[in-house]
């Protein structure tokens, strides 16, 4: 009986992440359109796109590794979702959060991109190969301040599990945003690169590279990648809210907090042009690295 309830809870979490992620995508398109002085698509546009892509027939034959690429991405997103506490006190959405471990999550988040790279490599399209190399070298850029911020948190509060950090915030009453500010700043600057919005969207830019690793995927593969992209966005936002903003008690507060946090990369990205790969890496090894070092020093001294 417990098993069936747990499985239902897992399915409910995945559906929640899918719906919230897609809605955020639609709302972002609307905001972008309004900033550019035009009316945009309706807020449910991403659902229509997903259904249209699902109903296309697929006639792409490149071998079995190419079909496994999107599957890798989807599996990684869902598994990462299982390890993150969505609400403060569990309930329907407590999946595997008692095993929540920050270091394990760091490894897991990179696995999806690697699977996608393997799948794109088999097509033989040079655009995919170039896009994959650029994406991986950009990842070298933003991973460093992100890991430094997390290490600073782990040193300061002497725990490596996410639930432990959430308990620290509940006991002391203040959010980690205020008690370790440098870690928060470094993590937010790394977040700009994680979401792959402008100015760091050279990996999948349509006019630059014929959309990079996605270029040979159409129809149902593209549906898988879009859905896993939205689920992954929800995962990252919830992780940030849990670590720095005190978690959420119910779904409405969660939606409000994640949306305000999501506006930071989106609003910055609407008005920025695109960086090349070496400019992006140089940016990430400048101020974000400095703030990361400050965060570690702060954690060690205090």
């Amino acid at each position, binding site marked *: 009986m417990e098993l069936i309830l747990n499985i239902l809870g897992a399915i409910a979490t995945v559906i929640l992440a899918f719906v919230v992620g897609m809605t955020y995508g639609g709302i972002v398109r609307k905001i972008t359109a309004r900033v550019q002085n*035009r009316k945009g698509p309706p807020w449910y546009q991403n659902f229509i796109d997903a259904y249209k892509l699902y109903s296309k027939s697929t006639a792409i034959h490149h071998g079995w590794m190419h079909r496994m690429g999107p599957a890798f991405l989807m599996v990684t997103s869902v598994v990462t979702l299982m390890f993150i506490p969505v609400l403060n006190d569990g309930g329907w959405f407590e999946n595997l959060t008692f095993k929540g471990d920050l270091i394990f999550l760091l490894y897991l988040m990179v696995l999806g991109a690697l699977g996608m790279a393997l799948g794109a490599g088999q097509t033989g399209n040079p655009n995919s190969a170039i896009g994959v190399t650029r994406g991986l070298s950009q990842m070298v850029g933003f991973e460093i301040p992100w890991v430094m911020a997390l290490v600073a948190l782990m040193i300061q509060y002497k725990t490596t599990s996410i639930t432990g950090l959430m308990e620290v915030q509940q006991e002391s009453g203040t959010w980690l945003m205020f008690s370790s500010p440098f870690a928060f700043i470094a993590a937010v600057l790394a977040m700009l690169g994680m979401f792959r919005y402008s100015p760091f969207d050279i990996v999948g830019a349509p006019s630059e590279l014929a959309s990079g690793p996605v270029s040979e995927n*159409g129809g149902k593969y593209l549906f898988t990648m879009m859905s896993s992209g939205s689920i992954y966005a929800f995962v990252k936002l919830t992780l940030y809210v849990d670590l720095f903003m005190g978690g959420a008690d119910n779904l409405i507060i969660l939606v409000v907090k994640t949306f305000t946090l999501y506006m930071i990369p989106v609003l910055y990205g609407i008005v920025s042009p695109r960086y090349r790969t070496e400019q992006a890496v140089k940016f990430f090894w400048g101020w974000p690295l400095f703030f990361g070092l400050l965060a570690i020093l702060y954690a060690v001294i205090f």
Partner: protein
Amino acid sequence: MINDKNTQKLVDVIQNWARKHSIWVLAYGTGCGAIEIPPTMTSRYDAERLGVRGAATPRQADVLLITGYLTTKTLKRVIRVYEQMQDPKYVIGFGSCTINGGMYYDSYNTIKVLDKYLPVDVYINGCMPRPEAVLAGFGKLQELIAAGKADGAKKYKENLDWYRENQKRIIPNWVMPDYNW
């Protein structure tokens, strides 16, 4: 219960509604008519409120916009692009050069009637058509999709031999893979 006619009709209605509200156009300008596509997609005559957005590769696109004249050199590449798109796909003929040759009716190098080489769903008249005309053309395509009549791809599959014969007549050096669908 799943295979009876009414359920099939209901599923078709929902599918056609989703397909008509999100059309992805391949960003490929074949001829000089492509200069009217940026005004249609940007702020003044916004095409994104209909769900129309640009797609980067033929694998991801729904609609191939043949904007203007097609020389024999371009026709070979456009046929290859068309055969790489996924079903269901549509072709829109843009400008008067696709209808009867337009301004280049006596040229030795351009094709005059597009319908004999690729199946066309909607023609948009003009030289070049204004963005309002382009949006009206997309509206016509949406009506055809909702009625289930936009079946250019099916026509291509059934009459593949006839299309191939026409194509091979004007392209002497035919090096292309087989069409698999």
